């Protein structure tokens, strides 16, 4: 295998990793907010249900969750799904796992807001929704951004776990190449790809943080 072929194959894998990364963020960031609301709900049933969900998501390995989501339909319900389900299983697994982590970050941010902000908004006549969207959420985002960055960076590396259900993202590709060539080259290149991806994300998150530093 020539260098150019290897890099092309790894790039294809990389594209899949980026796909997992992007879709996971796209769905889990908003979903996490709703999960956080459920976690803080006055409804005891809902609150405890959400607590259990978060506890399972954080208390078991993501790799195992992926397995359950991928193989579950067949082993538990005897449903045979098309091969295209592999991709959905990866996205579902990552989204519900990351939503749980994001929910706890949101909750921490929301609960750290001084009660005076809510009171000032109330006296000025803002509705609850207006208060949250205009006053609370923008400040929460600024507060939680460093924690979000942490999760986002972890996510890049976690995309490699899709390997567990043979989804052809970069790590899966690298492993196949390395096994065929019986050397480390593919792994090293993949490592460089992950690292560069991380640098870019780190730069973007830093830029957002800077954009939000116009107030204290």
């Amino acid at each position: 295998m020539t260098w150019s072929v290897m890099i092309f194959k790894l790039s294809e894998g990389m594209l899949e990793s980026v796909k997992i990364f992007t879709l996971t963020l796209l769905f889990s960031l908003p979903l996490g907010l709703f999960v956080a609301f459920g976690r803080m709900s006055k409804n005891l049933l809902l609150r405890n249900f959400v607590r259990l969900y978060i506890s399972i998501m954080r208390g078991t390995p993501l790799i195992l969750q992926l397995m359950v989501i991928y193989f579950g339909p067949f082993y538990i319900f005897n449903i045979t799904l098309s091969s295209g389900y592999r991709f959905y299983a990866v996205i579902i697994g990552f989204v519900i796992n990351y939503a749980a982590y994001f929910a706890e970050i949101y909750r921490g941010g929301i609960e750290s807001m001084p009660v005076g902000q809510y009171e000032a908004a109330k006296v000025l006549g803002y509705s609850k929704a207006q208060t949250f969207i205009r006053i609370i959420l923008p400040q929460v985002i600024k507060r939680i951004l460093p924690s979000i960055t942490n999760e986002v960076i972890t996510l890049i590396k976690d995309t490699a776990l899709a390997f567990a259900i043979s989804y052809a993202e970069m790590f899966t590709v690298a492993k196949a190449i390395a096994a065929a060539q019986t050397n480390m080259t593919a792994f090293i290149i993949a490592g460089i790809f992950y690292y560069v991806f991380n640098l870019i994300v780190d730069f973007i998150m830093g830029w957002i943080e800077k954009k939000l530093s116009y107030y204290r």
Partner: protein
Amino acid sequence: MKVNLLEIKNLKKSFGTLEVIKGISLNVEEGKVVSIIGPSGSGKSTLLRCATLLETIDSGELIYLGEHATTDIDGKASYAHKAQLKRIQSYFGLVFQNFNLFPHFSVIKNVIDALITVQKKPKDEAMEIGRGLLKKVGLADKEDAYPYQLSGGQQQRVSIARALALNPKILFFDEPTSALDPELTGEILNVIKELAAEKMTMVIVTHEMSFARDVSDHIIFMDNGVIVEEGSPSKVINNPENERTKAFLSRFES
């Protein structure tokens, strides 16, 4: 003719087993300035928070411009429906001890955002109102600054402008100078004095005795959740009759 903007009737409020307000009644007439003084823990801030609907009262009546925010039913306060409370909310403004400005909004946005978001005023009209108010509180040159860039006194003046923007009929102040350095209290007191001269109806919880005496039409001395003594400033501050009032005021003799 006397018009009562606010009537409070036999208001009671407990936190758990601790009764903080033990039955207080008072009226605030249009154009008058009422100051509430008293030692810490006397319930004066709680009274203000009850009046501004930030705390739920246990019993008694809160009536703004003849509209009931609460009605007393068999010794329990029953709150009006949401739409009426929302309307009543628009009758008053509140200036907090800790300002509670929105840190992510510029000074002008702090002042006009509720005008646009809540009252649905067009932006240019809101800007005009906001700039006028900033000028009034002496901060015309700060409209693009952010709260953290201002001194405490300036922040409190912005929060007064923010409260005034919604054109309230009655303005409450909860210890407006207590979070400020002594040299900054003057600028706030001057703004309040100016408002008093314009016949703004105000209820002020304060520890500034000489200010209360100068600015108020009526002074209420509270202790242990009750009104101990009330009347004109000359009566309550200069010639108190009650022993507790005398003891409290003796600490402020200068």
